[in-house]
């Protein structure tokens, strides 16, 4: 039963979020104006898109609810446990460090930090290997993009 819940619930949450989002967006779309005959307003496409999301999201949500009783247990590998959710959140946190730091620290330190963090998050046990690995990645990308292709990598106090 727990597994059935784990499978059905996220579906309904996504449909609920999207349907609510579309319902809310109908009003600003109308405010933008749908236009008139021969002259369409800037609110028309967002209005049509919102209606589409609303209709399809509600239909999918209702059909998911109706299927609930018939849904069998999902395959074990489809259900994410607490550990996996935490790992995913950790990886996203590491990713978010890059745009947070790169504005003032420049390319090198945030890239070192993120590549090191990602290496640790995905299974390197020791400290030495991820450090060497992150230095190599940072240097290699800098050489390719910064030196070879002369692209403007983010600059800050460290670069």
């Amino acid at each position, binding site marked *: 039963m727990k597994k059935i819940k784990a499978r059905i619930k996220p579906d309904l949450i996504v449909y609920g979020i999207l349907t609510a989002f579309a319902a809310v967006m109908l009003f600003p779309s109308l405010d933008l104006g749908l236009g008139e005959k021969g002259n369409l307003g800037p609110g028309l496409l967002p209005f049509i*898109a919102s209606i589409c999301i609303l209709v*399809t999201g509600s239909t999918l949500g209702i059909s998911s609810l109706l299927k609930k009783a018939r849904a069998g247990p999902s395959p074990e590998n489809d259900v994410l446990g607490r550990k996996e959710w935490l790992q*995913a959140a950790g990886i996203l946190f590491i990713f978010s460090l890059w*745009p947070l730091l790169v504005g003032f620290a420049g390319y090198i330190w945030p890239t070192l930090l993120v590549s090191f963090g990602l290496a640790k998050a*995905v299974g390197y046990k020791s400290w030495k290997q991820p450090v060497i*690995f992150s230095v190599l990645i940072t240097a290699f990308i800098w050489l390719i993009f910064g030196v070879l292709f002369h692209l403007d990598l983010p600059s800050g106090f460290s670069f």
Partner: protein
Amino acid sequence: MSGIEYLWDGFQVALAPANFLMCLVGVILGTLVGVLPGLGPIEAMAIMLPISIHYGPLAGLILLAGVWYGAQYGGSTTSILVNIPGEASSVITTIEGYQMTRKGRAGAALAVSAVGSFFAGTLGIVILQLFTPPLAAAALSFGPPEYLAIMLLAFVALSTLSGDNPFKGTLMIALGAFLSTVGIDRIAGVQRFTMGIPNMMYGIHFVPVAVGLFGIAEVIRLALKPYTPTSLKSVRFRELYPNREEIRRSIIPIIRGSFIGSLFGLLPGTPAVLASFTSYSVEKSLSPKKEEFGHGAIEGVAGPESANNSAVVLALVPLLCLGIPFAPVAALLLAGLQLHNITPGPLFIQENPSIFWGFVAAMYLGNFLLLVLNLPLVGLFARVATLRPRVLIPIIGILCLLGAYMTRMALFDVWVMIAAGIAGFFLNHLGFPLIPLILGMVLGNILEDNLRVTTQWLNGDFALLLTRPIALAILALIPIYILFIRLAGKKVLRSGIKD
């Protein structure tokens, strides 16, 4: 000037050192991208987009296209040798290709795959070269109603082709179309859904969204469910010879696959994936040795590998003729051209003959380079696929961050990419198709422009559409298309996937 003379000039342009170098870099990079699980042509092209600006429109186009079709070659190598499809379109090749490797026929499978890809790619380029100019000329007679009809057909096709549930496809397209409206409206000049954030005024670019949906979501997926690289079967160059029986059994599937791919290439969405699955189903149903399928039937390698390569080339036709990208990677090519103030469409070939014919010639060269490079270097490329996910993830992660940043040199795009990565992970986990979301974002603006122009043109009287036979014919194709895909196409595709 005749087509042959234009092509000759094209070869002279394509063989210029800078263009040739871009072709070489593009196909090698594309092969590597195809080999690596987790890194697809979308992310690679997004990263190469700012680089392409430095080398002019033709060199940039050659580079980006090289990555695209090179990825199809690379994907098959790892499917055959290590049972890891580097690309979605190579998934079907793992079924027969890896079984052939287990039976000691890896060399034959790789050779047939490479030759089939070369033949199909070349056939695709010939069709592109022959049909694009007259189609573009015909498209000159298209007015806004015809373009609107094509857009509607594309939207319907995308929703029906994506996944098992067309409602999910429609939901994703609508979401993409909504996101495309964020920013300053180009005609009315008003802000739409910008929430007072200055960066939102420029809109949400589809590249960081695509990198997030596919790249970051894939990084998370790989981290949570890492694959175990299988041991690499070494293949020597002298082993790359199929025997007479294998050659005989491959010829017709290669030809058939090439034509199937050519047809599917013109469809919106993921033409290479659909073409390879359909080709596999067709080969299986037509083969006199059906019992060998699933145990290393060479037809199951020859057909799909040819199909995905011709589909990739032909997917460029709608972009070059109409200026409408029907696949996310075509949208990236469009973005690459627009960065040079070049707009593909009916006038593209007339106004930029050296770019078009140079591009066609570079595709011939790239296809040849792939054949020449891939067979001798097959062991090297396959070794890349045996890298463990924990080595790949930090590299892919940093490349995604840079790819998103370099799109417009804005950190806002990196945040958009991370948000898209979160959404992509959840949506993918719940079985939502992601390609329609990207194409909804790309096509949303074009649809809106055409809808507005058509409404003005018809002065709001849509009954006047009845006086436009081409638009009517395209609109009439919509129900026929739905019927065909839902009844015939799905049956073929499903049987291939199930097997």
